[in-house]
């Protein structure tokens, strides 16, 4: 009994020491001297809450029963940490960017801040973790009984331990509600406990190897000789439990708490990626030697789960046993404290607060005292969780059934894995998918593992376990779908994960996410590309003052005021009240989420802002970076296309201008020549006429030459005048009605007097009635026919005329069988002064086509060169009715 009293004294001293450490760390953090509190070493050590009493004591028992298989429990987490770049890095980044407070909060936040999902995950976590807490209480009771010769009142001890842990957790776990939910005191205490655990196990191991056995060679021989060596690897369990422990490592509420929520710096993960596997390796290094020597030395029937404790005791090593007890005690308390904090956060943020908010009605965010409600609900939740753990222990009677609960609990919490990984890697995951997956997985877990674990005839009857419900054999809880003979844990893990993932994927594929879900999905999945530029609220008539009042109630006045002041400064406003811009609202919501969870924070801001949804427009604004980049580059491309087009147009215009300028120079010299030629002959013949003595016939002849030359001059001047009138739009049109055929006939009649040009008249379409300035139109036709007559260089010049009419527009083509016009010259034929061929032969003024173009413009039509017709071809297009076209 003396040793028992000493034990109690030492444990009490140890607990006081832990309190002191935690208080010291909190004090340092408050003073801002938290540099070393945030070191990667402390972070790594805090991850050791993974090693609970179940692994501290239980690993040896596990090894004694199943040989090396116990290693799978450590290998899974090792894999997760070594692969930190794949999953953990993203999880931690999301946790920090979105101020995630728990697994439930992560899933709820990802799937559109859904309260229902948060509640589901919380419930699963509580059901999965409570038996585990009971297991820790049991381990402490068992350890104490190992020291005492007389029977220890287990239930009473467990109650005391639970109460003590509740006090510690409430003291250090609910001290602050600061935005990032970090608990420096708790983390520090956990880190110290981690060292105690490791030192204790290494000490016992070293004692076994070098104290009891004769060193490494001897222990190797003993291992080979021991019954442990009869163990054969079970492939299913080796594979299954490695994956199970890896899944649980990510999903366990306590692991998420220390790994993601308490993470102060993403880079700590890089250190932990190798340091924590090292810790695990050291923790498991001496497990097999201890088990082997325990089986050898201790009487048959001793509980191998307690070898760590009983082996030193049996060798009279009281001090070592005491250290070992402290190690186990540390493992148990560390787990319970962190799990209680994690569960309390989940329960209060995902269940209590939403319920309370709903009960309070719309004004809760402004008037209610959220802060005290929050702290109270945390404290109550911690007490309730620990009490539930105690009740579970009490009901199960602390028997062997409890020992198996570790893996069962793992399978339960692992049900969050598909929703979690799917949520951070797959944008298509929806809340319905997540809900369906979680429910399916949880149901299978409860049906095939959790409920049967209470033993036959406890929940399920023996006959039902053996034959299935109502005799349906493929529904046998431990042999679903007729697959029997697998280990029950692996069986449940396999089926629950398969059906969970299948339901998650299929339902996600079939359903459609809400805008908020898509927004969150985009942010979570592309967290490394996007940064934190999400817009979630549209400004309305929001009172910043209301927001400040609410924030003060949750964050505390100084913190809230600092946040608001910084935002106001950022907006360039004096005072405490910034404009409720979308950016500010998103920031505020994130800060609040750090205390009350994403769903609640969203709902509270929503109450004040008056809207809890995101519009599609806002969603579009935060479309992912890829889309933005693609849009930007296609815009650039369009711009450069446009510029290229402009450049081409400019180049063409320039060529035309150059050509025109040349033409103009040529024309000026030509027109002076043209004017000069008749003028010269008029002057010459006038002089001759002045000298008398001319024959009458000669005089007649010279006079007519002068007359002809004057006509030629007049025509040239008429053309110039006509063109200038047309160009200035001063022409008055005389609208008449006629058929196109008639107009063409008239034109042919006046143009082809005595020529050899063959005209191929239109076969049809001539009867189309047009209402336009018929005189002007026939002027155009005459011009075109004369051009053909003048320029067509074929031996048998032929001009074909074609008429077409469609949609109120008449089209008349004039096509000759000459060699046509070279493409570089087509550009300028409609310009003034342009003449293409030998001037002497043509004898025109060079204004004909220019006049035609102006006429057609006045008639609301057009004239164009028609390429590809074999000869020179012109197309005249004009509206059938000038009056209608002008409207």
């Amino acid at each position: 009994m003396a040793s028992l009293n000493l034990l109690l004294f030492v444990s009490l001293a140890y607990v006081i020491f832990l309190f002191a450490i935690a208080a010291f760390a909190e004090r340092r953090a408050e003073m801002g001297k938290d540099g070393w509190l945030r070191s990667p070493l402390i972070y790594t050590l805090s991850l050791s809450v993974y090693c609970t009493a179940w692994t501290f004591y239980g690993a040896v028992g596990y090894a004694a029963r199943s040989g090396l298989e116990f290693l799978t429990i450590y290998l899974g987490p090792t894999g997760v940490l070594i692969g930190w770049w794949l999953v953990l890095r993203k999880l931690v980044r999301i946790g920090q960017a979105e101020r995630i407070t728990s697994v439930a909060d992560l899933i709820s936040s990802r799937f559109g801040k859904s309260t229902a999902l948060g509640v589901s995950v919380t419930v699963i976590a509580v059901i999965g973790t409570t038996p585990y807490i009971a297991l820790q209480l049991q381990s402490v009771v068992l350890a104490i009984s190992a020291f005492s010769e007389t029977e220890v009142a287990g239930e009473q001890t467990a109650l005391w331990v639970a109460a003590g842990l509740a006090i510690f957790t409430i003291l250090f776990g609910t001290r602050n509600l600061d935005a990032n939910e970090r608990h420096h005191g708790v983390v520090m205490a956990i880190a110290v406990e981690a060292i105690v655990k490791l030192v204790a196990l290494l000490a016992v191991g070293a004692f076994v190897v070098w104290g009891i056995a004769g060193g490494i060679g001897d222990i190797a021989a003993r291992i080979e000789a021991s019954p442990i060596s009869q163990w054969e690897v079970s492939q299913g369990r080796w594979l299954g439990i490695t994956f199970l422990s890896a899944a649980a490592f990510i999903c366990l509420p306590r692991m998420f708490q220390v790994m993601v929520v308490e993470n102060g710096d993403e880079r700590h993960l890089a250190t932990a990626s190798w340091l924590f596997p090292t810790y695990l390796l050291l923790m498991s290094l001496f497990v097999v030697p201890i088990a082997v020597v325990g089986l050898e030395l201790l009487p048959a029937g001793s509980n191998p789960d307690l070898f760590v404790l009983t082996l030193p005791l049996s060798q009279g090593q009281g001090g070592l046993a005491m250290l070992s007890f402290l190690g186990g005690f540390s493992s148990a308390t560390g787990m319970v404290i962190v799990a209680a904090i994690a569960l309390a956060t989940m329960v209060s943020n995902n269940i209590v607060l939403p319920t309370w908010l709903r009960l309070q009605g719309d004004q809760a965010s402004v008037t209610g005292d959220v802060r005290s409600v929050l702290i109270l609900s945390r404290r109550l939740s911690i007490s309730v969780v620990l009490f539930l753990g105690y009740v579970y222990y009490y009901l199960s009677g602390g028997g062997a059934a409890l020992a198996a609960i570790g893996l069962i609990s793992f399978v339960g919490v692992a049900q969050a894995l598909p929703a979690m990984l799917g949520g951070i890697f797959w944008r298509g995951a929806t809340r319905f998918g997540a809900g369906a997956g979680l429910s399916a997985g949880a149901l299978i877990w409860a049906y095939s593992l959790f409920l049967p674990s209470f033993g036959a005839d406890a929940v399920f009857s023996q006959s039902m376990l053996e034959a299935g419900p109502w005799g349906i054999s493929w529904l046998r809880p431990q042999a679903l779908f007729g697959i029997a003979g697998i280990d029950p844990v692996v069986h449940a893990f396999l089926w629950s994960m398969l059906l969970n993932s299948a339901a998650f994927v299929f339902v996600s594929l079939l359903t459609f996410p809400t805008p908020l879900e898509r927004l969150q999905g985009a942010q979570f999945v592309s967290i490394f590309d996007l940064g934190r530029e999400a817009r979630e609220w549209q400004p309305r008539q929001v009172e910043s003052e209301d927001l400040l009042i609410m924030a003060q109630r949750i964050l505390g006045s100084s913190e809230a005021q600092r946040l608001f002041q910084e935002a106001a400064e950022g907006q360039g406003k004096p005072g405490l009240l910034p404009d409720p811009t979308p950016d500010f609202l998103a920031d505020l919501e994130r800060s609040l989420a750090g205390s009350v969870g994403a769903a609640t924070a969203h709902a509270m801001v929503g109450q004040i802002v008056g809207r809890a949804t995101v519009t599609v427009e806002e969603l579009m604004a935060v479309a992912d970076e890829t889309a933005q980049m693609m849009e930007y580059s296609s815009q650039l491309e369009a711009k450069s296309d446009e510029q290229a087009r402009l450049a081409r147009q400019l180049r063409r215009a320039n060529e035309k201008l150059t050509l025109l300028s040349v033409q103009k120079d040529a024309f000026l010299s030509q027109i002076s020549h043209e004017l000069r030629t008749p003028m010269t002959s008029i002057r010459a013949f006038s002089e001759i006429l002045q000298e008398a003595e001319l024959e009458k016939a000669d005089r007649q002849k010279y006079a007519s030459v002068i007359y002809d030359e004057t006509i030629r001059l007049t025509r040239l001047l008429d053309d110039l005048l006509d063109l200038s009138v047309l160009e200035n739009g001063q022409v008055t049109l005389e609208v008449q009605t006629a058929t196109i055929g008639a107009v063409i006939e008239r034109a042919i009649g006046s143009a082809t007097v005595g020529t050899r040009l063959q005209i191929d008249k239109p076969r049809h379409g001539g009867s189309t009635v047009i209402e336009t300035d018929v005189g002007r139109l026939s002027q155009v036709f005459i011009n075109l026919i004369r051009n053909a007559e003048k320029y067509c260089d074929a031996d048998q010049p032929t001009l074909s005329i074609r008429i077409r009419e469609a949609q109120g527009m008449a089209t008349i083509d004039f096509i000759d069988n000459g060699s046509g016009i070279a493409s570089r010259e087509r550009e300028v034929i409609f310009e003034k002064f342009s003449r293409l061929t030998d001037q002497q032969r043509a004898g025109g003024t060079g204004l004909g086509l220019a006049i035609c173009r102006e006429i057609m413009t006045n008639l609301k039509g057009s004239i164009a060169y028609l390429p590809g017709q074999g000869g020179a071809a012109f197309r005249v297009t004009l509206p059938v009715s000038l009056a209608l076209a002008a409207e």
Partner: protein
Amino acid sequence: MANRRSDTDGKHAVFLERRGYRRRRLADAARVVPVVGGVLILMPLFWSQADGERVSTVSAFLYVFGVWALMIAAAAIMSWLLSRKEED
């Protein structure tokens, strides 16, 4: 290896390009390490079936712990390289 065009932009550009490339491949390596570890750790599954002859527990023990230590070393190197790259 590095983008050829940047060779003409001067030595600095080549250096940047190459460094970015290295960092990406380093991240790839960080993803490969757990896969390799996983394969090695699952190896004991194939032992017992080989020819009915049992592998001694001590050698299995040494194998698993050896792989484990190797993985830790690999992870330590990767994390050192990755955090060094991130800093500069």
